[in-house]
């Protein structure tokens, strides 16, 4: 048992390394992905809040000043990039749609772990590299940030990433039945743009929608870690978010296991 767990760990570490090695093969693409894109997203979202406050009649919105919103926009863009999975979800669907999943199905490993470890490896290294953008902006503009809260915020974010991957797994499993399900990814990510709190802090929503959306596990993607990091929320909200992610993981993984099992049974081994 101990040996097989060690084998499992070594194998998954190798998958994580594969993600890093593959991405580093294309240096310019990686630079744009890890530095240019986050800089652009951050700039756009911060400009949006500058414009909102320029046209506002008061110095505060919902009890928070312009600096709080700028800080939220800055870290929100950063955390949203971590918790969004376009690339790997697209690849997972493509593997099944094109039949290249064949090479994974005949090896002693699972499709879930293979992509999960790659996603984690990629997100880990990209987070480290992209981190330079928000840190520099915070220091330059003296935006409110509790740096001592970063470890817990990251722990929550990477726990949430497991849920993100599990949702990707469910969507990819649909490709066994429907082949082209790329639009599902687009629709899901649009919904999460709102539900994670990337678009605006979720506490700006009217009740009862606000309480409902905050209680969903998706708020752990942006709203909770960023709110906690910028002083908008306290540790109790983080604990609550951990619990709702756990519930979400159970539900989504049960669905994923069912869809996968049914899916491989109807799979025709596309191509070749």
């Amino acid at each position, binding site marked *: 048992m101990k040996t097989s767990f060690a084998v499992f760990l*070594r194998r998954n570490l190798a998958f994580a390394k*594969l993600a890093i090695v593959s991405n580093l093969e294309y240096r310019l693409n990686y630079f744009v992905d890890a530095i240019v894109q986050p800089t652009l997203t951050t700039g756009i979202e911060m400009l949006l809040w500058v414009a909102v406050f320029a046209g506002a009649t008061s110095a505060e919105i919902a009890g928070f000043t312009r600096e709080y919103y700028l800080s939220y926009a800055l870290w929100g863009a950063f955390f949203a990039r971590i918790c969004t999975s376009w690339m790997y979800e697209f690849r997972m669907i493509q593997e099944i749609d094109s039949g290249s999943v064949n090479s994974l199905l005949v090896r002693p490993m699972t499709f879930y772990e293979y992509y999960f470890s790659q996603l984690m490896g990629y997100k880990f290294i990209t987070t480290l590299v992209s981190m330079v953008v928000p840190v520099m902006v915070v220091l330059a503009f003296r935006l409110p940030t509790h740096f001592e809260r970063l470890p817990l915020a990251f722990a929550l974010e990477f726990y949430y990433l497991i849920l993100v991957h599990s949702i990707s797994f469910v969507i990819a499993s649909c490709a066994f039945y429907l082949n082209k399900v790329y639009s599902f990814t687009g629709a899901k990510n649009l919904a999460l743009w709102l539900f994670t709190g990337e678009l605006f802090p979720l506490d700006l929503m009217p009740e009862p929608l606000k309480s409902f959306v905050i209680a969903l596990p998706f708020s752990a993607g942006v709203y909770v870690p960023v709110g906690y990091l910028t002083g908008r929320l306290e540790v109790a909200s983080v604990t609550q978010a951990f619990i709702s992610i756990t519930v979400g993981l159970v539900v989504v993984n049960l669905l994923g296991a069912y869809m996968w099992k049914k899916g491989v049974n109807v799979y025709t*081994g596309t191509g070749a």
Partner: protein
Amino acid sequence: MAIVIETKDLTRVYKTYQKPEGFVNSLRGFFNRKYVAKVALDKTTLQIESGQIVGLVGANGAGKTTLLKMLSGLVTPSSGDATVLGYRPWERKNEFLRQISILLGQKNQLWWDISPADSYALLARIYDIEPLYARNRVEQLADMLQCTHVLHTQLRRLSLGERMKMEIIGSLLHEPKVLFLDEPTIGLDIVAQETIREFLDQYVKEKGPTVILTSHYMDDIAKLADKLLLISKGHIVYQGTVPEFVAKSNTEMAENEEVDFEDVIRRFLETESRVR
């Protein structure tokens, strides 16, 4: 010899969407689709002994690849049963997957964006092979296939022949007991075909795995196969050796007419396409 692969009434039916041509039919098909069932493999029963190279021959769509995919666990049968090394393939147990390998000549199984050497290191982790042992084995296999010089080049930059050699090394790294080869020489020039054929012949003699080989190049089958399985419209229509098959065909010929294996197969496939 022990029976390694056994099937009983193995059947696979595919459901396919039929769309008549034209824009209007596309619109109709959006709301109402017609599906037809196609039997790819029909109640196939066979036994294969260990250490044999079995040549699986048939026209396009005869059911060869479907049979390989079911035996390797990629496709679940609609009915019937099969065991490979004592396992039901489509249950995909790790103990089973560690002992088999499938090489699909028209698909890449190594990683496109990294070098074959990096791919083999990853495969060593997947199959839990000691890294140093894996490296030595790669060197040995690459030496046999005369392709040591491309081990550190990104896979996407290799020629088709070089890529196929890399795929073969990848499929043999964990020393599978059962090897499924689906058109391993497809699209290769004569020299590369010959190299791969000689390599497989030598490898099987040394290591003794059970091999099921499909190929449209009859030289592959004639030179490598101990046993021939002829498949037609989802049915196995002949099981025996290549020389027996040729002899049997020759007895059915008119006097003064004698054919070799390639001719016999060509005639068989021509008949198939007329009947189809």
